[in-house]
């Protein structure tokens, strides 16, 4: 084996699950350590940002970047690691399409701060203290990063070479991707490393032509173990979601929520879900259709964009401060 490559793994706005997923490849992590020198991985090794800053550009061979970008510090790290890395991989759903942190795009910074620092029952904040970007202390001025109104994906921040979808990516897919990188058998830059079919293709349930009179929530029925969940009225996102997980959730009776992101060719996850779901509603009466939809899908953003709001065509809900939109946003809550 020739000279070892350099590997960096970083997290931005994420839950840490992607880091665990990397360890999910089990003892193969030793092969990774055999092939790469890990130069930066805050969760596992003690390395300093400053030492990355001092490295020559493009001196890291591979950077797996998980997490979305929602603060100036995360944007800084995304830019830094982009400059220092030959191959930058958006690792996991947050970096790929915003994921759960991206759902914050249904609100503004002000609304989030109001909830987090004032309104939650567990908050004890009599002085109404909020994080400030600059604070004077006797030793000088200290800074905190700026919190954005809108969560961005990694690709909305810097150029990304590859995407590894999933919340989190399945260990087998991570290993496949690492092997592809090590053997230099990568797809064209800009590709999603993964399957090009949907979760439905991996799902063992029996599908028939669907006709639905109402959408059901998961707690309303105990689903039949053999029949397609969508046939039974559950909003299952398998139809729009990229395969790769082995249809874990629908196999055990829980509808797909779309964590593996849009399949190839799906430009907007929610739009594809709307297209597919509207086709199966069994009604031609406008009032009945309206009722089926408004009662069956009380939270369209959470249903259709649970993992992809930041990467959707619209990217976010209207900011309440934005004049014309303010009234409606308040009315709809």
């Amino acid at each position, binding site marked *: 084996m020739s000279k070892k490559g350099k590997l960096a793994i970083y997290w931005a706005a994420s839950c840490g699950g992607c880091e665990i997923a990397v360890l999910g490849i089990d003892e193969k992590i030793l092969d990774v350590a055999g092939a790469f020198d890990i130069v930066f991985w805050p969760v596992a090794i003690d390395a*300093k*940002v*400053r030492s990355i*800053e001092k490295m020559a550009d493009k001196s890291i061979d591979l950077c797996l970047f998980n997490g979305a970008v929602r603060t*100036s*510090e995360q*944007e*800084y790290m995304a*830019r830094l690691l982009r400059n220092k890395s030959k191959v930058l991989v958006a690792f996991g759903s947050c970096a790929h399409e915003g994921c759960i942190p991206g759902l914050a795009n*249904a609100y503004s910074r002000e609304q989030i701060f109001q909830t987090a620092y004032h309104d939650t029952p567990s908050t004890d904040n009599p002085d109404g203290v909020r994080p400030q*970007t600059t604070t004077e202390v006797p030793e000088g001025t200290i*800074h905190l*990063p*700026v919190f*954005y*109104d*809108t969560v961005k994906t990694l690709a909305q921040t810097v150029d990304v070479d590859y995407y590894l979808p999933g919340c989190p990516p399945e260990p087998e897919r991570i290993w496949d991707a690492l092997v592809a990188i090590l053997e230099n058998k990568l797809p064209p830059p800009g590709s999603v490393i993964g399957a090009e079919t949907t979760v439905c293709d991996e799902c063992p349930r029996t599908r028939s032509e669907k006709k639905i009179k109402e959408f059901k929530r998961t707690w309303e029925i105990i689903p039949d173990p053999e029949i397609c969940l969508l046939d039974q009225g559950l909003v299952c996102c398998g139809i729009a979601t990229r395969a790769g997980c082995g249809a874990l959730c629908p196999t055990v009776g829980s509808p797909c929520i779309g964590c593996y992101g849009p399949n190839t060719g799906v*430009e*907007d996850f*929610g*739009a*594809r879900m*709307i*297209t597919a*779901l*509207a*086709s199966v*509603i069994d*009604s*031609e009466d*406008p009032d009945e*259709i*309206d009722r089926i*939809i*408004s009662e069956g*899908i009380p*939270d*369209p*953003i959470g249903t*259709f964009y649970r993992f992809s709001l930041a990467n*959707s*065509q*619209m*990217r*976010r*809900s*209207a*900011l*309440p401060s*934005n*004049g*014309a*939109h303010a009234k*409606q*946003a308040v009315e*709809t809550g």
Partner: protein
Amino acid sequence: MPEEQFEPKIIAFLCNWCSYRAADLAGTARMKYQPNIRMIRVMCSGRVDPAFVLKALSFGADGVMIAGCHPGECHYIDQNYKTMRRFTMLRHTLRAMGVEDERVRLQWASAAEGTVLAAAINEMVNQVRALGPLNWTDQWKESFNVEEAVLALEHEHAEAMEVPV
């Protein structure tokens, strides 16, 4: 000088068999309607992927109209019923995103209904003009100087993380 009136840009997807012909009829009959509409002919209103509408709105359109044959009269049997359901679901979603209902409109217009289509266009243009510009990409802008904030970190690191030898 009078204040300049906001002129909305509205994208309209018209089905080939009814609504586009209605627009043709409106033209040959020399009916006037407001010139704020950009028409795109599609084979069927059922061809309009909700992604087209979202793309139009996020790329600068102030409103989107989808027009097709009356329910029960679709050239492709029942596709416009799918349009009806899709549109309802799309508007439900856009409402949650804070986009006003008047910015998206589903209009049935048969090939004989040039007047209906022209009237619908006029009504929609007036409604959207009253709402004002959508300018959706403005929603993505931060209220502070992002470049400044990011560069500040670089300077700070250089200052704080260097241990004097």
